[in-house]
């Protein structure tokens, strides 16, 4: 355990994201199950946003923007399936789609402002 190879000597012992990933799951589940639009949207945003943050933090992805786009694409697909197929859970589907759209917007904003600033350091 002593000769720490690779990552471990700079491995971080703290991360703000896991709590929010974990909170996002139940909030979105409750929102979707009981058809509570705001909870569904908020929970999904919290969940997917934190996933993106986590991926970024651990260095699994280079660009936050790209993971946000992928995640919102997944949300669009899932929401679309709920709205436009025989499943026919329309309001819930729209909640998922709205979450996907907000995520996309958030990604663009993040890319334009925060990322710019980081580059300039």
């Amino acid at each position, binding site marked *: 355990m002593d000769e720490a190879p690779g990552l471990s000597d*700079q491995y971080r012992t*703290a991360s703000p994201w896991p709590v929010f990933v*974990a*909170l996002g799951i*139940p909030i979105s589940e409750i929102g979707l199950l009981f058809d509570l639009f705001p909870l569904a949207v908020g929970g999904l945003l919290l969940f997917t946003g934190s996933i993106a943050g986590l991926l970024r*933090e651990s260095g699994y992805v*280079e660009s936050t923007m790209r993971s946000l786009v992928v995640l919102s694409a997944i949300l669009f697909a899932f929401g679309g399936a709920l709205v436009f197929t025989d499943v026919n859970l329309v309001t819930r589907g729209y909640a998922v789609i709205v979450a996907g759209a907000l995520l996309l917007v958030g990604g663009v904003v993040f890319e334009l402002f*925060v990322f710019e600033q980081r580059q300039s350091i």
Partner: protein
Amino acid sequence: MEVNGQLVLTVLMGLFLIAVAAWLARVENWRSYTPLAGAGAVGSTEQYVSEEKPSGVIRWLTTVDHKDIGILYGAYGLIAFVVGGLMVVVMRLELADPASTLISNTFYNSLLTSHGITMLFLFGTPIIAAFSNYFIPLLIGADDMAFPRINAIAFWLLPPAALLIWAGFFPIPDVIPAQTAWTMYTPLSAGVGSGNQMNAGVDLMLLGLHLSGVSATMGAINFIATIFTERNEKVSWANLDIFSWTILTQSGLILFAFPLLGSAILMLLLDRNFDTMFFAVEGGAILWQHLFWFFGHPEVYILVLPPMGLVSLILPRFAGRRLFGFKFVVYSTLAIGVLSFGVWAHHMFATGMDPRLRASFMAVSMAIAIPSAVKTFNWITTMWNGKIRLTTPMLFCIGFVSNFIIGGVTGVFLASIPVDLVLHDTYYVVGHFHYIVMGAIAFAGFAGLYYWFPIYTGRMYQTTLGKWHFWLSMVGTNLTFFVMVLLGYGGMPRRYATYLPEFATLHQIATVGALILFVAQVIFVWNFVQSWLEGPKVEDGDPWDLADDDLVTSEWHWFDRKLQTAIADGGEEEAELATDGGERIDDSQSTSDVSSDGGDPVAETDATSDE
């Protein structure tokens, strides 16, 4: 009205998200952020983490250190144990007389349901995870778990899970607690009929259970990856310790069992809320039972294998010898792991299933008793002619063996179809599995808590109180649950708040036993908390004198080095200490308690760069 509600929710949710974003922006220094992969110079890149852990509550909310997470799991498990324990105290008081006097029958059913789910999913699984998180990386010489963040996510799923499972008890309008029992048999749990189980409280409980399953699955994946890939090169499969073996097997079982429970719960939720018909059609009730028990029986071994590992690890330390037949203990663990998927229908003998199928399940159920017995004999032989030291952890280990024998033997009887047809759904079954879940699993948990108390608190508990805790627990457990075995012979059915007067005496004895158990746990909590805060500091890296018999395991070496490097957290931290351990670099991440009490980040960063 409806729209207003939505509006309020939207505003609240929005505010919450903004608060989260603001907090994250503060904690996470976006601009100086360099992902790990690209980091060049250590120490300059990660602003708030590389120096020391954040302090206070934030530290616990953001930690991904396996030891911190282990402590969080432990605290969580013990809190759940208190909640589940208090629930059952109320139930036992109600059962002190035949009529329904103290609480209503429906409230009894609610408590019964929550007690079971709380103890199995919120106490049992997490308390095992507490030990495995804290000690597996130390035992196998890993820096941390393979996926530290997933580890943190898995833990943080649990508090919301508990809130959802207990939601019915909170004063939320129109929400009542589930009364489905932990088995959640349909059609009752599907909300069919004139009962009140269509209530949202049941949905919340199912969601909570689902969440705890997701958490367990994430943890299991993490342990499998850790044990396979993060071992120190000195730790081979041949000398992997027994606790890691049991956790590895348990993780495999979780991987196959919990996703199935998750899917079945989702199907049930769909039935309840979206008019699907999985469990409503002809045969649906049996379908549920098959799905549930295909998960449910492996679940009992998920809960018992790691405690067996703990006992196999701890018991030899106080018997002054190595574990007898180590290899066979490992083989029997693996055998149990495989066989446990082939016995589930022994919970369904009374459903009128095909007798030929029933017989085959009976055969496998009997077969699974063999590896269990192998372990029991190995523990006994380890103690035979050993140099036994009756410390508190050892007492709990011996108590484990004793209770496990009674629990196991009653189980073998239940596995026999004709016996089961008589005893099914009686208190005999309750006695059987409580000998195991309380008498064995909880006892092993206590053994671990006492054994490693010096490591995770740096202090020693009060030994006299520890022994009181053991003896009262042992007497209480055997009184309560042996009486239940007798009640079962008498034909007392399980899951009722009331009973015929002829059962009164035995029920009253069981209640007395439960109260003894309660007193024992009060002593435990007092001892635990008081000693953690004020107990004498442990200065010896080998407080159990394991070196005398050459039985030291690597977590004690780690503890010893930690003491050497940090000069017990006596307050006088000195910068030079970091160097004398030579290779103690991982301490910069792990000696959390040291840095938290005033902390000298300098020494710690130095240590990081010395490799």
